[in-house]
């Protein structure tokens, strides 16, 4: 199923999930991203790489940060970008997803960036699309959010230089988090020493061990000696059952506080994909503190998305 991401020469054509890729492709994305970061020094923050290409952002779910960074990434590559507000478009008049896609296809677009509440939406579009179009998954249901995972990997490499001897803890709503799923796959693919997940039992998937992680229910045990702390947002909108007593109770048991952060290595970095719930997952002073790299993650998001867009667009199928 995942091989749909690669073209006949093994090059990245669609970027739908970390699953099905390999260390070489992930490293190529990280190296290319690094080159794009030097662009922020330019007066004209634009390169002509994707001139004349049309990229359509199809966001069936709300997003500010992800959509904005995708738009910026595309414009800095000199592509033309169209962001469709699906809530007011034809799908709300009853048009099917495929009809929407085929109509846009008839307008000769080159790439779709898709966010959808249903897991597998990106794969579905990639399977049903004209061969010259690339699809990038900007988050599908509870399945994957691979560009977020890559910008997190890029941020980790920026601060820690190598993945090899790292201990990384992912804390919070693992059950509902497409970000966590993609992060765990990427961390393991890039060869970190240990990936830990820390959450109450109700927010851990039942198959958690098969993900290649150490699971902890006690945050204080899980944080000991880690190099990287990744906080996740509580996805209240996806919680259909009573999984938590209250936000206050959650913060008491699983919130990242100054005292708890001291259990990690003294040079540990703190990450969060945003939007952050201050006082729910993370103490405000940590989010704004010296170990927080949360805003650096946002800046890196542009360079990493530029890299992924240009790498997928160079696949033969996309440019011929």
């Amino acid at each position, binding site marked *: 199923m995942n091989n749909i991401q690669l073209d006949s020469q093994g090059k990245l054509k669609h970027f739908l999930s970390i699953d099905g890729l390999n260390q070489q492709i992930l490293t190529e994305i990280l190296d*290319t991203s690094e080159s*794009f*970061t*030097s662009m922020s020094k330019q007066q004209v923050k634009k*390169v002509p790489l994707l001139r004349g290409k049309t990229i359509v952002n199809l966001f069936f779910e709300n997003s500010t940060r992800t959509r904005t960074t995708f738009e910026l990434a595309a414009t800095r590559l000199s592509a033309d970008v169209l962001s469709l507000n699906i809530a007011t478009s034809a799908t709300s008049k009853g048009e099917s997803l495929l009809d929407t896609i085929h109509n846009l296809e008839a307008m000769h677009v080159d790439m779709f960036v898709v966010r959808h509440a249903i897991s597998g939406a990106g794969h579905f579009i990639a399977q049903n699309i004209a061969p010259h179009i690339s699809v990038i998954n900007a988050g599908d249901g509870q399945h994957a959010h691979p560009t977020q995972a890559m910008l997190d990997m890029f941020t980790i490499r920026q601060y820690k230089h190598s993945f090899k001897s790292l201990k990384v803890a992912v804390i919070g709503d693992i059950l509902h988090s497409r970000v966590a799923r993609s992060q765990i796959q990427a961390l393991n693919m890039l060869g970190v020493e240990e990936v830990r997940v820390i959450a109450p039992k109700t927010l851990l998937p039942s198959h958690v061990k098969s993900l290649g992680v150490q699971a902890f229910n006690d945050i204080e045990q899980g944080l000991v000696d880690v190099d990287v702390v990744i906080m996740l947002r509580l996805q209240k909108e996806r919680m259909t059952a009573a999984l938590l007593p209250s936000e206050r109770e959650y913060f008491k048991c699983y919130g990242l506080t100054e005292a708890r952060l001291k259990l990690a290595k003294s040079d540990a970095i703190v990450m969060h994909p945003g939007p952050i719930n201050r006082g729910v997952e993370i103490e405000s002073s940590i989010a704004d503190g010296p170990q927080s790299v949360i805003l650096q993650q946002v800046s890196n998001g542009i360079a990493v998305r530029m890299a992924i867009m240009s*790498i997928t667009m*160079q696949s033969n199928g996309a*440019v011929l």
Partner: protein
Amino acid sequence: MTDNTLEIPALLTTLETSLRQKIASRKLTDPIMIGIHSGGVWIAEQLHKKLEIEEPLGLMDISFYRDDFSQLGMHPKVKPSQLPAHMEGRNIILIDDVFYTGRTVRAALNEIFDYGRPDQVVLGVLIERDGRQVPLQPDCSGCSVTLPIGQRIKLTGPAPLGIHIQSFPTESDE
């Protein structure tokens, strides 16, 4: 095959002399030297010392400005450009190893101008060969050579530097 008739130290000396004359005649005060990855950087590192240029050497990767992205895709080992943030109004000495079609220099000029509007830009290359495809040419060069179509001249390095001539079935951009 390695070409023994082209001696790198001699070519570097010729290029250095020519650049000194150009710096004087064009009044290139306080210049910034920029080498184009990879071969241009190796040459520029030596010239930067010989010409005692104060400003740190700039490194440029023109991969994002190439005109053949849609045919060849991204260069697999693209490196970050390291250029001074303020190039506005500055004199620039751009260095590459081989000048061939001129397309690399076209891309490099575009990148330079995206960092600001320079005053003068001078181009120095170790080897100029025939086969220009755009109306650009070097100001200074270590030598000029004519090669049969399908042959490519390439600098290998960084240590030791060598010049190789290879035969290719199709032309490619230097």
